[in-house]
Each structure stands twice: as structure tokens, then as C-alpha cells.
């Protein structure tokens, strides 16, 4: 077991290193950072000097080595745009992204599971058809369009909810939260729906098909034959058995919720790390781009590692193959 985990961790480190290298190779094509860092009239000599000071003239592999060795010590360099340490800026922005991801995951589960159960139990009802149609829209519409539509309905026309930003935030030490103020709670509704809509439809369809599958199995028939109440059969036995794949998918999807937040954060000007990354790409802010990509890679690797370890705990067959 320990050997398995250690092997997994070593593989994870390699994955992160490779992501870093790929990112560094890509940075050659995003443009010249120096152009974004100085005014239009800065002389060529001054530009060259800056390039030299930043180490941009060094070979790619040297730059990569500097970055990785500093990153290992927690130093991600200084942002070209903001002239502040990247770790500090990311630390400021991360709570916003994590809060948004968490709320949209909760929304996706809380809405997706009941809808899935309902559509499985009452396959031909009008409401089921409505749910299925809505879910089709949720899957096929790109999230920036959903976001803009929501803004125009709920912010511009009805003026119920704010169109952008995070509202007032409360600082709890290093964590800033918008979930404790009225404006903060209002501000998170639209972005959370936009970000969670896809996951919600995914969960709903997954629950529906799993549930329909389980309802056909013998033990459900047997439970019915025993004269158990329908409610107990559906929720006590059938739903419980559909939950295993749902939990796996939800867990794995959490990583992509954070990664996909880039688009939602841009539409709603949500001050999270995704928006920071997009602005960094536009301004060729290499240190922020590199740190963000590493962070996302780390997150995915971490989630996968946890899932792998859990599988080992749950499923003895994998354990046997490993040893």
C-alpha cells in the first residue's frame, strides 16, 4: 500500500514537471513580455536592458530550471504586470475561485440529483420532458452565452442581481469570503449557476440512467415483492446504489470546475484566479501563467491521487495487482 502511494506520488511529480516544461515551451509563442511592460516610447536600449535583467535572453532550459527550482521553494517570481510576488497575488485570488467552484458544485448536486431521480421515476411526465430539454440546452450552450443571457435577464432587465464582481467580502485571516455578506451572496448566484449548469445536467443524466438501470435489477424487484414502501425502495435501495458513480464523477469534475472557471470569471468579472490567468495571457505575464498552470496541474494530480488511493482502499483487486 505504502509502496503504491509512493509510486503514485513520484508519477505525480513527473506529471507536474512535464506540465511546467510544456507551458514554458508554449510561452515562446504568446508574444514578447517586454512590450507589455514598458510604454510605447521606451528606447530599444532600455528594452534590451530589461530583457537582460529578467533573464529572458537565457536559453529556455535555463529559464525553466530557474523557475522550477524557485517554485519548489515556494517562490513563483514577480508578476510583470503588477510588480508583486505571484504567490501573494494567487493567494488573494484563489479563495474567490474556490468559493465559486464549491457553490456551483453544491448547486449542481442539489439540483441535479432530484431532477435525475424524478426523470427516472416519471419518464413520460411533462415535467420530465421539460427537465430533459433544459438539460440539453445546458449541455449545448457555451457557458459565456449562458452567463450573458443571465446578466441581461436578472441584472439589466429585472435588476435583481449584480452583473459583475463579488460584492462585499469579509477577511478571515488569509481567506476572504463573500458568503457572509448579503451583497456577496447575491453576487455569487449568477456565476455559480453559469458554472454549475453543465455539471448539473451531467449529474442529472447520470443519475437518471443509473437509476433506470438499478430499477430493473432483481434486488429492487425483490424488495418490491417483499412489500416495502415505494419510497423506501426508491430512495433507500435504488438511489443508494446509483450514488457510487455519481460521487466519482463529481469528485473528478471538481477539478475541471476550477479550470473551466476561467470563462465564467471573465464574463462576470469575478476576481478569481481564472480571470487573473486570462489577463496574464493577454499581457504575456509569464510568471502568473506558469504558476497558474502548475497550480491547476497540481490540483488535478492531487484529486487523481486521492481517487486512486480511495480505490485501493475500496477495491481489493487493485491492491492485489499492485503487489
Amino acid at each position: 500500500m505504502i509502496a503504491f502511494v509512493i509510486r503514485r506520488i513520484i508519477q505525480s511529480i513527473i506529471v507536474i514537471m512535464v506540465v511546467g516544461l510544456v507551458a514554458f515551451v508554449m510561452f515562446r509563442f504568446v508574444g514578447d513580455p517586454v512590450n507589455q511592460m514598458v510604454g510605447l516610447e521606451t528606447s530599444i536600449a532600455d528594452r534590451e536592458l530589461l530583457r537582460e535583467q529578467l533573464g529572458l535572453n537565457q536559453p529556455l532550459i535555463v529559464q525553466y530550471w530557474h523557475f522550477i527550482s524557485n517554485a519548489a521553494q515556494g517562490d513563483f517570481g514577480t508578476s510583470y504586470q503588477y510588480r508583486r510576488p505571484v504567490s501573494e497575488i494567487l493567494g488573494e485570488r484563489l479563495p474567490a475561485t474556490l468559493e465559486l467552484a464549491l457553490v456551483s458544485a453544491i448547486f449542481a448536486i442539489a439540483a441535479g440529483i432530484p431532477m435525475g431521480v424524478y426523470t427516472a421515476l416519471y419518464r413520460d411526465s411533462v415535467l420530465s420532458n421539460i427537465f430533459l430539454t433544459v438539460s440539453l440546452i445546458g449541455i449545448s450552450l457555451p457557458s459565456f452565452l449562458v452567463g450573458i443571457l443571465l446578466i441581461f435577464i436578472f441584472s439589466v432587465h429585472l435588476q435583481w442581481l449584480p452583473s459583475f464582481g463579488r460584492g462585499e467580502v469579509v477577511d478571515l485571516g488569509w481567506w476572504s469570503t463573500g458568503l457572509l455578506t448579503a451583497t456577496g451572496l447575491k453576487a455569487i448566484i449568477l456565476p455559480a449557476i453559469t458554472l454549475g449548469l453543465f455539471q448539473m445536467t451531467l449529474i442529472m443524466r447520470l443519475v437518471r440512467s443509473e437509476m433506470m438501470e438499478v430499477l430493473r435489477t432483481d434486488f429492487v424487484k425483490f424488495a418490491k415483492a417483499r412489500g416495502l414502501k415505494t419510497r423506501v425502495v426508491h430512495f433507500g435501495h435504488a438511489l443508494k446504489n446509483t450514488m457510487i458513480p455519481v460521487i466519482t464523477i463529481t469528485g473528478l469534475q471538481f477539478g475541471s470546475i476550477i479550470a473551466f472557471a476561467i470563462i465564467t470569471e471573465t464574463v462576470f468579472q469575478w476576481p478569481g484566479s481564472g480571470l487573473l490567468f486570462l489577463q496574464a495571457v493577454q499581457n504575456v505575464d509569464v510568471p502568473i501563467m506558469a504558476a497558474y498552470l502548475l497550480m491547476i496541474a497540481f490540483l488535478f494530480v492531487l484529486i487523481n491521487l486521492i481517487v486512486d488511493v480511495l480505490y485501493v482502499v475500496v477495491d481489493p483487486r487493485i491492491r492485489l495487482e499492485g503487489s
Partner: protein
Amino acid sequence: MNTIKLMLSATALTSVVASAVAAETTFRYGFQGSLGSLDPYSLSETFTLGTLTNVYEGLTRRDENLQIQPGLAESWEIIEPTRWRFNLRQGVKFHNGNDFTAADVVFSANRVRSEGSDLKARIPTDAEFIAVDDHTVDVVLSSANPILHSEWHTWMIVDQEWTVTTDSVQVTTAADTSVTTISQETNGTGPFMIAEHTTGVETNFTANAGWWGWNGKAPNVDRVEFKTIAADATRVAALLSGEMDLVYPVPPQDIGRVESNAATSALVGPELRTIFLGMDQARDVLTYSNVTDANPLQDVRVRQAFYHAIDAVAISARIMRGQATPSALMLAPSLFSGSGAFERLAYDPELSKQLLADAGYPDGFEIQLDCPNDRYVNDEAICQAVAAMMARAGITVNVNAQPKAQFFARVLAAGGYDTSFYLLGWSPSSFDSWNVLTQLHGCRTQNEGTGPFNIGGYCNLKVDELAAQVLVENDAAKRDELIAQAYKMTTDDVAYLPLHQQGLAWGVSEKFSVAQRADNIFRFSLITAAK
């Protein structure tokens, strides 16, 4: 029951507090870009510097019409052709309470020219600043310079004592790993102070009640809140929903929407920025063309043919939806008194074909047009329209639109001017023709320092000579005559293909009125609340 009573009284209390807060006027605005470093010498970029001029002040100011007005200097005179005297305003205090004196001006003049400053060009390197007394500064120049102070409204004066004690003398550059106080905090003399600054997200300003320019009256607004809203649709929505009092820029296609909304209106006006096309005239063979044995663009007839093939009036009317003015010169007409004498070459595709045939290209040729797609208003659409228009004259234009980061990396000096035909915008930072003549028209080959933005490599030694005379001519009428001569040469040579002056579009709430300056700088002290 008791709880309900308690809740009711609590609600009453909050509403009292809320109304007390409401009596204080807050102005909220959103812009597409963000405020990076707060060090006023770090980055010479319009939005950063323009925003900081609400906090710091220069010796001069520019009013709504961009006329130079006294700022921290009450008056100035040229006592000898190479010696200027500035009489400083008395009784001015920095936000931390320090007195503003001549020593601060001398200190700022040295700091702005020091290593790492991006605003070195604001002051000639050999200009000497002498503090005559506490409120008089003399500037000694090596040669006459009538536009010495033309960019000083964005050269802001910092407090010597504060900068030294906070260890911020060194200008913050992007290469610095340590964070200096001056890049995160401010201490100016201006009408507003920065209360909170969250990098790249929002910045809140509070009024400086002691500012000399209020003339004893109360500040126009008590608080200004700035937020970055990068997405166009979100920015417009924030104005329409009443969450913002001002947003800019408003994209041309949304101006109608902002106008039709009862609570908002669009404020449009010409910007100083000229959008133009440039042509590679330096290389002997074009890099991106199917003509492989010559550079057709070195022939003035081909450049004229390009000019006649483009209908700039249609571009302004259709692509820009009326939010642009076709231009004949490479700078805004308002910046040069003699600009009325210049006119665009007429749109005439037939003449264009004729000229091409005369130059030896009866069937036209192929060329690539490099174009940014996120820098200027509708930049990519303009390039596509140009391609369609030039096709009628027989020239096949392949549009290569790229994000600004890649585009500038290629076409500017650092990328080796890697383009044959390109779209660019230019607004002279000094609001003066000399900038345009040297930066865009100065020969690149003479020495490395001149014509850095002359991407096409246009070169006319007579224009360079005239530019040198323009620089030192103190007499305004003579100077304008020299400028007119230079422009006559550059337009006869068809050095560039000017398209239009880009328009500015701001969306403003009916609750306030603001002054829109043609350089797109927003001054908080010119906000007025509607009664």
C-alpha cells in the same frame, strides 16, 4: 415577539445609517484595463498615468480641451532661450502633510530620469534643475526646446522625504523582486487619495478636502470607486443595470443601447489616436508578398495606388458606425493649426489600377496585412474591409490578425520589423507634431535612437532636417510653417496611409456629468453630480 421588535428596530437603525452614508456622494466607474503598479514612473501608459494624475500632480495640467494650465507651478517663463523659470504654488501639502517645495521638484526630475524609469523621455537628459529658492525652480537646457513642458502633466511630482524614508528612491521595474512602498501606496498632492487598492481588481479613492484646486469649496464627490471590467458585454450591462456611473470604452455596436436606456447616455468624441496603415519601404524585397524580385512599395505610384483603393469614409461610416473621422494627416487635426490645408487622396479604384499598371503591376500583386485584433476599436474588421476594397483595385490582401502581444512582438523593433504591410494606431504623447515627425517619419538608419516606430522604414532626409529645426524653434508661427512643410513632403511621398481618428465612447449615468478628454484621460475633479 421581542425578537421581532428587536429586528424591526435594527432595520430602522440600518436604514438611518444607510441614509447617512447616502448623503456622501460616491462615483463608481469601470474600465477594461487594470491599474498595475502605483509608482508614477513605472509605466508610460495612458490609463495608468491618467488615473494617477488624480492622486499626484505635475507642474502643469491639461484642461478639458487639452490646453496647458498651471498645476503645481503657478506660472513659468522662458527667461533665456535655454533657461526656463517655474514659480511653484505655495502652501501645497502632500497627502501625508509634508510641504511641497522646490526640492521635491528637483528630486522628482532626477528620479524620473533614473535607471528603470519608463518616463525618461519626459525631460531631456542634460536638462539641469536648479532650486533657486523654496518655490522657484530653474531649468537649464543645452538647446532651446519650446515643447519642454508639453508632457509634464503626466510627469508627477513625488515627495522627496516620503520616497526616501520608505526606501522607494529606486523606480520599481518589472525585474524587481522586492516590493517597494511607492508601487503599492501613494502620497501625492492631488484632489484624491487612494484608500484601498486590490491589484488588478479594484481601487477606491477618497477626496482630499485640503486640495488647493477646490478653492475652499467642498470636493465634488467624496469617494470614487474604480473596478476593472474586461468583458465588453459585462461592462455595458453594469452601466445599464445602474451598478456603474461611468464605463468606458463602450463598443460602437452598444452605443445605441446605452442611448436608448433612459438612465444612461453615451458620450462620444474624437480621440487623439490616428489609425493608419504602414508599408515596408526599407527592404529591397518584401517579406510577405508574391513579388519576389523587387519591393513594389518603394515606388510612390504603388503607394498612391494603395491610398486611392481605400475608402476611408466608408470604413468610418460602416465599420466604425460613425464613431471615427477620416483623417488626412498622421496626427489629430486639433493638434496642428495648419491641418485644414491637407486633404485625403480621393477614393478611386480605377485610378488605382492605372497607377499600378504604370508601375509595372497591371495585374496587381499579393501582400499580407498584419493586424492586431484586440488593440484598437474594430481593428480586425478594418483590416478585412481594407482587403475587400483593395481587391477591387487588383491587389490581393491576406489579412493576418493576431492578438496584440504577438502582433507587437513581431512588427516592432524587437521583432526586427517583421512585416510588409500593417495597421497601427498612434497618438503623440506630447500632443505635438515633432513627436509624429521623429517617431513615425524619422529615418531609422541614421542611428538607432531615431524613428523607433517607423516600422515601414520611410526615410526622407529633408523631413529629418525640418524636424530638427522644429525642435529648437521657439517662435510658434515659424514653427507651424516648418511643420506644414514637413507634412507636405510626407503626404506627397505617401509615407503612410492614414485611415481615421478613432472615436471615444463612454457610457455615463444621468446622475452625473463628466468631462471627456480627447486623450481618454478621466479626471475625477471634473465630475459634477446632476441636481
